[in-house]
């Protein structure tokens, strides 16, 4: 099997890259471990940012203002050229989705509706009720169907084929046959999404959003970037941590502590309140809980009751549905119990605006990539935007790179990779250990939530690094996995956990090394941002025991770092 461009991942970034590359005239194959419409892009709720100026209070909004808000929100760690590109391309990219049929909500004049979101100077978040991701994902997949692009679904990519410093394809387990296959290509784009399942006991992310998509290139020598910056969403549903969109607060919802007080006034200006950026709101909620003003010591209330039945049913129907089904409460009548939950991986595969990485022929886009447009803290509504802007940019750029290139199938690299994966599969089956892989994953997730969470300190993080290393050793002695033939999910999850472990170690070592507080990385022992020393990106290079940490400069532009006040 040969494609000019192989795209791994069927969420918004992967689908949009596939469309861009296809439209540029090259042969595209999209490979995904789940069917594209099952991707976690579909779980995005609140909306996508673009300075369309449709909102009555947003007529003066501009891409420049969007870029400034994003850079300030990032605590000045984002690369300013990339942010400006994203903000400038946002309006046309959203309009294109609308032209493809995306069912956005509307104003009376027929234009796309927008709502206020955290850290934004104007209401610029375009939405379709609270199911924006679902609508965008399905719209994008519909365009893939229209183009009849090859989609290999339920093909689980486990390894890159690399020879002489060039990526020439991937090795994938075809779940439908239970056989490993090689897929050759002149370029590979990873669009594998986030890695929230590293924190599996408290994450908004899908089971599929593991660290493996980062770990596969990391193992092959590609650096990861800024992994210590993990976003905790302020409002995960108590217990299951299912996302309660920022749109709840955008539509006017309150956060209340156990005294019934809108406590955000104690942390930010009364003008901003609940719509401060996520890192600040998450810390505020956690502070309330830690200082005894939460409920049952672990949650606060997200109160929508004053919005009224009609507004809740019209603008937040999905939130109401989730509350009814998972919590048996109706937000029209009852406040929603919420706590912060792992939500987004700001870091990722080190790449530039074109998705280009240090490995020739290998590119990245979407949440698995780190361009970086989100820096130390992503603004709500910028993640869907990132996937479609950089999906398009990368797809186009890579198509240009491979166009006219002869079909270079490096059989050796592919076969070596194939043999290595078959060998790994066999060894896991004949393993003589005792350890349950899922106990290791649960222990890892506990370490990450407790020690590399919202508030961090040196003692905890040092302990976390050691514990992760111990878990990696335990992982070498697993109980055997079964040979089930088709759809061997135990093998799939065990492979994912291997990715989780190394992604976790990159997060922990990056966090331990960075002796400052910036965006989502907050240390109680170094609670100030230190630009002189730390206005730089972290690079993580894989070594089995100790990841190597280096740094590289942030691309600055017209915005000088300032104190981040809201």
């Amino acid at each position, binding site marked *: 099997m040969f494609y000019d461009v192989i795209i791994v991942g069927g969420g918004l970034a992967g689908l949009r890259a596939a469309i861009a590359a296809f439209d540029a005239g090259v042969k595209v194959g999209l490979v995904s471990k789940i069917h594209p419409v099952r991707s976690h892009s579909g779980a995005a709720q609140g909306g996508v940012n673009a300075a369309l100026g449709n909102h009555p209070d947003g007529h003066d909004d501009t891409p420049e203002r969007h870029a400034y808000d994003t850079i300030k929100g990032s605590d000045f760690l984002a690369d300013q050229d990339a942010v400006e590109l994203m903000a400038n391309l946002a309006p046309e990219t959203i309009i294109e989705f609308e032209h493809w049929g995306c069912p956005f909500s*509307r104003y009376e004049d027929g234009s796309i509706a927008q709502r206020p979101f955290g850290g934004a100077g104007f209401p610029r978040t375009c939405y379709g009720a609270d199911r924006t991701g679902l609508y965008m994902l399905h719209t994008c997949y519909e365009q893939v169907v229209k183009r009849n692009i090859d989609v290999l679904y339920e093909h689980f990519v486990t390894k890159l084929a690399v020879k002489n410093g060039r990526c020439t394809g991937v090795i994938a387990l075809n779940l439908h046959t239970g056989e490993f296959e090689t897929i050759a290509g002149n370029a590979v784009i990873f669009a594998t999404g986030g890695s929230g399942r590293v924190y599996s006991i408290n994450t908004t992310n899908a089971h599929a959003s593991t660290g493996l998509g980062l770990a596969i290139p990391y193992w092959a020598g590609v650096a990861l970037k800024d992994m210590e910056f993990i976003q905790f969403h302020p409002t995960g549903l108590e217990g299951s941590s299912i996302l309660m969109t920022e749109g709840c607060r955008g539509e006017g919802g309150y956060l209340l502590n156990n005294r019934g007080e809108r406590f955000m006034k104690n942390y930010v200006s009364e003008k901003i309140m609940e719509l401060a950026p996520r890192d600040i709101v998450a810390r505020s909620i956690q502070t309330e809980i830690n200082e005894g003003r939460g409920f049952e010591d672990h949650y606060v209330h997200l109160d929508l009751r004053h919005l009224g039945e009609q507004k809740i049913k019209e603008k937040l129907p999905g939130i109401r549905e989730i509350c009814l089904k998972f919590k048996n409460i109706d937000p029209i009548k009852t406040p929603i119990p919420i706590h912060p939950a792992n939500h987004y991986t700001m870091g990722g595969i080190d790449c530039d605006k074109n998705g280009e990485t240090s490995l020739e022929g290998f590119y990245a886009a979407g949440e698995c990539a780190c361009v970086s447009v989100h820096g130390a803290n992503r603004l709500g509504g910028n993640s869907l935007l990132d996937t479609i802007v950089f999906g398009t940019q990368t797809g186009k750029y890579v198509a240009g790179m491979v166009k006219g290139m002869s079909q270079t199938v490096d059989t050796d690299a592919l076969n070596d990779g194939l043999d290595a994966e078959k060998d790994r599969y066999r060894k896991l089956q004949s393993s003589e250990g005792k350890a349950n892989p899922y106990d290791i994953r649960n222990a890892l997730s506990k370490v990450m939530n407790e020690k590399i969470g919202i508030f961090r300190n040196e003692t905890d993080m040092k302990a976390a690094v050691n514990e992760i290393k111990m878990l990696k050793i335990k992982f070498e002695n697993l109980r055997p996995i079964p040979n089930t033939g088709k759809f061997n999910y135990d093998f799939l999850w065990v492979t994912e956990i291997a990715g989780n472990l190394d992604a976790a170690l990159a997060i922990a070592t990056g966090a331990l090394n960075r002796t400052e507080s910036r965006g989502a990385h907050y240390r109680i022992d170094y609670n100030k941002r230190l630009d002189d020393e730390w206005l730089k990106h972290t690079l993580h290079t894989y070594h089995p025991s100790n990841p190597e940490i280096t740094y590289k400069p942030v691309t600055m532009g017209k915005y000088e770092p300032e104190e981040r006040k809201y």
Partner: protein
Amino acid sequence: MPTFKVFRYNPDKSDPPYFQDYEVPDHKGMTVLEALYYILENLDPTLAFRSSCRMGVCGSCAMHIDGQYGLACETQVASLGNKITIRPLAHMKVIRDMVVDLDPFFAQYEAIKPYLIPQNAPGPREYAQTPRERKKLDILVDCILCASCYGSCPVVGTDEKYLGPHALLKALRFIDDSRDGNTNERLAFVANDAGIFRCHTIFNCQQVCPKDLDPTGAIGKLKMKSLWAKLTGKLKTTG
């Protein structure tokens, strides 16, 4: 502690399908999907089932749960009895355990041209669509393609040419979109005995839809629209 009676089948082996019992310690708020994960992770790593978002939006974990089609992730264990029977979706080939072959399901979805075919060439701004026009799509665009309706539909089970409730609902989603310009072609495609006229109006799809959508109603609406198009000479079909 409820017992899960779970359908097991591997067509590559000579054993016929069977049910296997697993005892799962439950807790408050536990979902059927969590119970299946408990089995996979602690009792039996050979169990095969699809899942991803665990919040009712990706559509992976549709199955037959104690007599009803639905999503495992949003079904509370506490809402069921002490003996809970889990089976795969019907009418599709079982690949292994709860994993069925969805290729025919997606082929039918693709057959209806599930993408906007715009009435007008796009300009620099969005197509204008009023809130009222958009509201017509409310009960149509929330489909997550989980195939609960498909598994529940007896016509799907007896006629492989039938387009199915999911594809017909999707056809109406585009016909009812003020921006789409392909209504007559779309109606012609569904107004025949492999499409809307094959529906026996049994309402199973409406009953099981985890998103409270109404494929039966959508098919009824398509019938009315086809009739009107036929009467006004816009529909060229003999179906």
